[in-house]
């Protein structure tokens, strides 16, 4: 196989085994962000590392990467816009019209569904950070390919 299409078959098999638990671990850290250390940013970085590992092991198929780049930009901007909408909802829905107010019920200490909108914020930021870091990597790959032509 040519150099461009990924590393040896051992690495590809290991990648096949590791990437799903890695991604799941990232989601776990994001979802439990309000109870244990972690949250949006660190969970997002772990999810991005799962994607980057897959690109490294399987090889960079550049036509697909160019299409993915547009989707990644959309995902990133849409999730930050979602966070902005979430914070403005406090302005509209809450009783006292305050920006970023925690308007969902705060449950019992130690539950997953507690502390207002913080879990939703964590999920949105996790998606956003994952999209950003993967986008940086994909953009550098596309640039390298355009440069060597």
């Amino acid at each position, binding site marked *: 196989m040519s150099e461009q299409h990924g590393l040896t078959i051992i690495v590809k098999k290991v990648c096949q085994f590791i990437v799903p638990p890695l991604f799941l671990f990232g989601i776990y850290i994001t979802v439990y962000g309000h109870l244990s250390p972690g949250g949006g940013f660190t969970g997002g970085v772990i999810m991005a590392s799962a994607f980057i590992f897959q690109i490294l092991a399987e090889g960079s198929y550049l036509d697909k990467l160019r299409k993915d780049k547009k989707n990644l*930009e*959309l995902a990133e901007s849409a999730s*930050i*816009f979602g966070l*902005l909408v979430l914070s*403005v909802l406090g302005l509209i829905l809450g009783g006292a019209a*305050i*920006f970023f107010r925690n308007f969902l019920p705060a449950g019992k200490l130690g539950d997953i569904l507690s502390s207002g909108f913080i879990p939703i914020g964590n999920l949105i930021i996790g998606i956003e950070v994952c999209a950003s870091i993967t986008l940086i990597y994909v953009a550098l790959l596309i640039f390298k390919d355009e440069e060597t032509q």
Partner: protein
Amino acid sequence: MSSMIPLYVIIPLAVAFLTVILSRLFNSLGKYLLISSLLYLTGLSFYFILQSPQAVVYRVGGFADVLNVPVAIFLVADGLTFILLLIISIVGLMAALYSFSYTKQYTSEEKYYALFSLMLAGMYGVVIAGDIFNLFVFLEISSIASYSLVAFSIDKQQLEATFKYQVLGGVSSLIILLAIGFIYWATGTLNIADITTQLPKDKTFVYFVSVLLLGGFGLKAALVPFHSWLPDAHSSAPSPISAMLSGVLIKAIGAYVIIRLFFNMIPVSYEIAMTITVLGTLSMIIGVFLAIGQWDLKRLLAYSSISQMGYVIVGIGIGMLVLATGGKDKVAALAITGGLFHMLNHSIFKGLLFLNAGSIEYRTGTRDLKRLGGLSEKMPVTSGTSLVASMAISGIPPFNGFFSKVVIVFAAIQAQYYWLAFISIVVNIITLSTFTKAQKYAFNGELPSKYNKINESPFGMSLSMTLMAVLCIVMSFLIIPGVREIFLKPAVDVLMETTKYSSKVLGL
């Protein structure tokens, strides 16, 4: 009323991200969204100023104070904030109008408008921030957006300029973060109003933190030992971005923060005031001497930015010195009025000068003064507005530059710093000769034959330049006693009651 303050941060952020999301469906949505949002925000700023409220305090998240200790993130808007919000909106609107036709040469226009909105959101955030770490985060947002905008049309000079700008800006941000760390260690709080009540009485600590803050923010404001990034970054950037950088960025994240922290957060002391005045004087002198020898038009304008920021800092410094040595309050108020008024004026006429230089470069393709000449017959709007701006910056009545410089010189004489008044007048004369040289080589003289076919810039560019030239004349009305009460006096009052700001904000 106070719930409209976060709109200054929400609206530019929403415009930035909506531009990227909707760029697949509509082609040039970003331009229209940006201009309409800036029109709305300008109107909102005027509305706030004409209502003239006292300090508006907004607690993000609505967390009430716990045992009289502020725990929420504060957004504070008082007299000084409102004039800065107004000038950021006006210059942003003019630069956005100018970019309408200027960005047609780029392939990814929507990213330009998204980054422009992010830079505006960062600047608005710095100006309304009431706690020091939020100020740092918004400062970084606008700095990072400006690093990418400087390199937007990716050629050799822009890349080298932005690398230099980024490394120096990064070091200064680290020094600011270090200062924030020290402040948190000593006082246990991050709220600007609360820090005043909790600062230790130990003078050594206050001087140490002041030096760190002055170093960090002095680099953002391009004071003299820290000015070396400015000529490259401001001259190589695309022209509307140069106008934004030189017009509002060095004021909103540089001069404004220095004024806010050293008047309202840290008690006024003689050594710090003398340091600030000396730095301002050095900036005035060195900036203008480096400007007069330049043959590249935008580099000349960038060096003269350093010199004019020196004027602003000297005005503020004289006010601080008078307050620190227990002089008369009226003299301090006069000096601070001069400094703030010059800050506003400089945004308008320096923005206009950079837009003119961009218009020349757009049509002729060069910025070198030795190769231009005689453009006044082919580009009447550009040369007319450039003449207005050059007269304004050189302090010729009835344009706005004259009034602000005269106020600073009078304040220096009344405070008995005669050398400062003399240096200001000499620097003004050298500024006049610099801009006479620029006007002569660019617009008067012989037209080189290869420029026979050019004509005036497109409509959007001409419109924004004309509006800014009109503003140059209108803003000289701000010194008239009736109008001054509305715009400048609330800002000066906030600074004159130096640390009583904290008790007003905390509501004690």
